[in-house]
Each structure stands twice: as structure tokens, then as C-alpha cells.
């Protein structure tokens, strides 16, 4: 049986996994494979940040159910947008190649995430808010 990382590398085009010098952050979604020659810690910190936000978002789910309100609404807006932004960023890193293409894709992603966050905050402020909206939707 093939190990999961090897199987996954079939799904991803870039075949280079070992990096002596990590200059690109957010390359490895399976955890830092060792800093080696003492390169920047950006990738490692990014990875940890991703897990932290995931855990935070997970915790917000019961919170949204048990104590819906503006605090949870805005936290959800932030955590949801950031988690999605980083996730889509990984997808771009995996499938988009070529310097300009990568730059264009990431810029588009920033625009999308910014608009999403703005929209969610607007919704929380001017409308019923995320928690209430989900409750209302499910009551249909």
C-alpha cells in the first residue's frame, strides 16, 4: 500500500518535496519536514497558524449553537474567512504554476477573501447575523 503523502503527490503536480531552503511560505500542508540549514520560520509558523485557526473555528461551531450572538458572529466571520483564505491558498500553490499566474491567482484570492470578510461583517451588522441566519434557514 502506498503511503498517503506519496499518493497525494500524484494529485499534485509539483514533485519537489525536499527543500534545503524554504523561501516560499505555505508550501507544505503536511507539516514542516525539518528546517535543516536554519532558513526562515515563515512556513512553519504558517502551518501552525493554519492548525490554530482550524481548532478555533471548530470551537466556534458549538459556541454558535449554544450562545449565538454578535461575538460569535464576528469571530465566525473572521475565522471562516481566514481558514478559507489559507485553504484556497494551498490549492493555488498546488495547482497554479508560473510566476505571473501565481501572482494573479493570489491577488484574486486576496480580493475574494477581503470581499467575503467585508460581506460577512456587513451581514452581521446590518442583517440578522450568521448564527441567526443559519437557525432561520434550518427552520424552513
Amino acid at each position, binding site marked *: 500500500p*502506498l503511503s498517503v503523502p506519496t499518493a497525494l503527490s*500524484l494529485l499534485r503536480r509539483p514533485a519537489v518535496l525536499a527543500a534545503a531552503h524554504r523561501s516560499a511560505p505555505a508550501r507544505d500542508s503536511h507539516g514542516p519536514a525539518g528546517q535543516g540549514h536554519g532558513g526562515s520560520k515563515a512556513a512553519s509558523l504558517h502551518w501552525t497558524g493554519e492548525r490554530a485557526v482550524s481548532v478555533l473555528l471548530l470551537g466556534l461551531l458549538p459556541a454558535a449553537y449554544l450562545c449565538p450572538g454578535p461575538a460569535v458572529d464576528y469571530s465566525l466571520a473572521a475565522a471562516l474567512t481566514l481558514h478559507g483564505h489559507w485553504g484556497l491558498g494551498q*490549492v493555488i500553490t498546488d495547482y497554479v504554476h508560473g510566476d505571473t499566474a501565481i501572482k494573479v491567482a493570489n491577488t484574486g484570492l486576496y480580493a475574494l477573501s477581503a470581499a467575503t470578510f*467585508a460581506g*460577512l461583517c*456587513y*451581514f452581521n451588522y446590518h442583517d440578522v447575523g450568521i448564527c441567526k441566519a443559519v437557525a432561520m434557514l434550518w427552520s424552513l
Partner: protein
Amino acid sequence: MGTTAREEMSRFWEKNTKSNRPLSPHVTIYKWSLPMAMSITHRGTGVALSLGVSLFGLAALVLPEQFPHYLAQVRALSLGPALLCSAKFLLAFPFCYHTWNGIRHLV
């Protein structure tokens, strides 16, 4: 000091895109395993959920009316319970799959 990983990667891609070589079949011929399938589903549900959230956020900015108005419109359609249930399932399934599989990744 030699080349950085980034330089090596760009050289690899430049050489390969220039030579216009065909890509050898990978996902079409390789025997699918459960970890592979679960992983790509995790990614697929993640992208779908992200796009859904973005759509929701953008709609909030663009649409003139508030959420309860549109909800009332949907209620007025008097859709059958089977349709409503299927719709809820279509929303809930990717969310739950991504959440539970995500926990599996975190652990």
C-alpha cells in the same frame, strides 16, 4: 551555496512547459485508495464551502433586501419536504464531511 528550491522548481517547470511533453496518465490509471479519495474529497468540499461562504458574503453586500425577505420568498414557494430535506442535505453533507475529516487531520 547552489540553487534554492524555488529556483530548481521554476527551472523544472520552465523546461517542461517549453518542451510541450504530454503528461503521463496518473489519476486516470492509478488504482484509487481510500486515503486518496478522502483527501481529494476533503479538498473538494473545502473549496465548495469556501466559494459558498464567499457567495453568501458577496450577496450580502450586493442584494438590496435583507435575509428574512429572501427566506420568506423561499418559504412562499411552498417546496415539498423532500426537496427541502435534499437541499439541506446538500448543504450539510460537505460541511460535516469537511469538519469531521478536518478533525481527523488535526489529531
